[in-house]
């Protein structure tokens, strides 16, 4: 059975054809089930994640999917800073700074679709004030957004983080992380609600914020 429902496929095909400008590459890092055990890895949703991006690639000539077997020592894994599985890196015309860890299912699928469109255009609909704030950031910034696929508030947080990364890919990297697939991170960050946002391991906050408030938190984290 298809991961993307039929009625959505038609809608998405039209949307991509109308709104995408440049090609977008999604690099999918997964690991085959038989190889996971030896490496001490568990990737519950590698297969499903792979299927979702394969189906997306069928919807537009401008969406390319590169499948990579995850190997911690490979250069591309190091270059892109991939450290969990499954991982998706959405690459627009500029070097990718937009990542998903865990299956982009449920509400999160809509974020992935929007990210593809934005990455393709190399621009976002953040307000002008926020864009200015974000483009002014000149220090390495790592934003982690912890979400669950059943959380209706999470896509907006994921989107703002990814939009910031698209606006300023040289300095901002943004990860959307499906919390329930990574219990060690739930413990590490003592997560008790989603979305929870962690910036440079310094500032942690939760809940739905406006893009302006979000940008302020990023600036605050950099000053900390």
């Amino acid at each position, binding site marked *: 059975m298809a*991961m*993307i*429902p039929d009625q*959505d496929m038609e*809608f*998405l095909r039209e*949307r991509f054809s109308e709104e995408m400008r440049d090609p977008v590459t999604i690099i999918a890092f997964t690991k085959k089930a038989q190889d996971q055990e030896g490496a001490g890895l568990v990737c519950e949703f590698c297969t*499903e994640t792979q299927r*979702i991006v394969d189906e997306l690639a069928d919807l537009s000539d401008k969406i390319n999917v590169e499948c990579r077997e995850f190997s911690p020592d490979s250069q591309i894994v190091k270059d892109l800073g991939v450290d969990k599985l499954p991982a998706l890196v959405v690459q627009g015309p500029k070097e990718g700074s937009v990542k998903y860890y865990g299956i982009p*299912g*449920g*509400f999160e*699928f*809509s974020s992935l*679709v*929007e990210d593809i469109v934005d990455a393709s255009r190399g621009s976002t609909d953040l*307000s002008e004030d926020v864009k200015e704030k974000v483009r002014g950031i000149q220090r390495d910034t790592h934003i982690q957004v912890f979400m*669950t*696929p*059943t*959380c*209706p*508030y*999470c*896509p*907006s947080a994921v989107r703002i983080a990814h939009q910031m990364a698209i606006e300023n890919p040289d300095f901002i990297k943004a990860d959307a992380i499906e*919390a*329930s697939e990574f*219990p060690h991170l*739930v413990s590490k960050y*003592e*997560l*008790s*609600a*989603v979305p*929870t946002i962690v910036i440079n391991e310094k500032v942690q*906050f*939760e*809940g*739905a*914020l*406006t*893009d302006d408030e979000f940008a302020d938190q990023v600036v605050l984290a950099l000053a900390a």
Partner: protein
Amino acid sequence: MSSTASRSETNDVVIIGAGPAGLSAAVNAKARNLSAVVIDAREPVAKVRNYPEVTNYLGYPKAAGIELANHFAQHFAKTGFPFKKERAQKIVPQGDVVMVGTDKEVYDGKTVILTFGVAHTKLLPGEEQCLGKGVSYCVTCDGALYSGKDVVVVGYVPEGEEEANALAGFARSVTYVATYENVETLDKTIKLIHAEPTAILGCTKVTGLSTDTGELSADGVFVIREAMPFSSMLEGLAVEDSFIQVDRSMATNIPGVFAAGDCTGAPFQIAKAVGEGQVAALSAARYVYKLRKKES
């Protein structure tokens, strides 16, 4: 996979509450050719339905509540607007759009009309401080984070039972604190306590709940109420004596957000709610027309 290919289209109006004010706003929004969605955790006109008799609504010298409620619901049905039986939890203005988050979805509106009814909801001591540190309102969102943990669910309304049942799938233990009498659908594995909660315990991280019958230790406390306090739902909303402050056009202090009915203050009467619902819808229409002009 439950997929949402894209966030649904932006509505001209998102109406929260399906009582007389909300449905009147819907009917008048339709008359102004706006698009709208109506959200309420209960069925439309649930409160009026239970009134034994109404004697001061013009044209109905002696009407049973259920009779008026049925007329209101039928009139609303003619608008064709969708009704979503969901609990509104968070409202976030984002530029020219206002996001309304429920326990299931997020709706974008160019405007929002708040018709919450009377809700004298107060937060528990410690609740605000512990938000994001173990206090949650959304099992659907956060339940998975409590895998293998001990959780308390405070149920002010029977819907809390459903939430507790869902949590039982993740948590090591679930204790349900009911503030009402008849608990009917709670899973047998869940410990039930009838008590009035008095405070959330723990400052940097939730450690439990205190009630009038004793303390319960827990890693997390889910609070399920009929409605969230206005101020925690929409930050910055001007509220005085538990009522939303509005001007004569039913506008609140937040652009694009209007309010009508009992939540704006006394008299708590159907006629007043219906009238305010109309004014709010017409004001929302003016706001939407201005936005359209700006966009074109």
